[in-house]
């Protein structure tokens, strides 16, 4: 399964590609946590980035993960870089 690492500058195309992958896991990282993840089933957001920006309440059903979790996701999935 593919893990899409997505930051703000490449957000539109990154999310659009992820939406075409029924097994996509999307990780919002850095300024990517400002994105609206509506319409994507498996969304993660990096806790440190979320906390700094104060956007936890806006991320809907995104799972908030730390760097340990992200390392696990990277190891377990194919990585697609949009960050």
């Amino acid at each position: 399964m593919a893990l899409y690492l997505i930051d703000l500058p490449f957000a539109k195309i990154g999310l659009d590609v992820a939406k075409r992958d029924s097994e996509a896991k999307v990780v919002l990282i850095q300024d990517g946590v400002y994105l609206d993840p509506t319409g994507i089933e498996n969304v993660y957001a990096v806790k440190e980035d979320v906390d700094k920006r104060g956007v936890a309440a806006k991320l809907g059903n995104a799972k908030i993960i730390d760097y340990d979790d992200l390392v696990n996701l990277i190891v377990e999935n194919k990585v697609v870089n949009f960050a």
Partner: protein
Amino acid sequence: MANINFLLTEGPFQTEKWSTAAKLGAAALKKGHAVTFFCYLDGVYNGLSTQEFADWEKVPGDYFKELVDNGAEIVCCGICVNARGQQSGKFFYEGIKVGGIPDWAAFVGGADKVVTL
């Protein structure tokens, strides 16, 4: 255990990519994964041992020194190092190497995962 390569193309301070990369690398090392870094373009400035910034307890270079101390391999693009006036990396932390894209290719060839920042 996996082998993870990080490509880092931005320098310290200006953007937060150095921080994300360093923290992810540290977390991966702690879990016992093999970690390699290729610092490309402005990414090479992260290797400097001479950073001084009183506002912060630790400067970016300290994080990269710790990565090396904890077993990460870090290679900086030599063309980028010299283009950016950093004199073959003579002020880099010991253990942070200057090399070339072939080194990066070797890292990627041996990696299970590649993360670009």
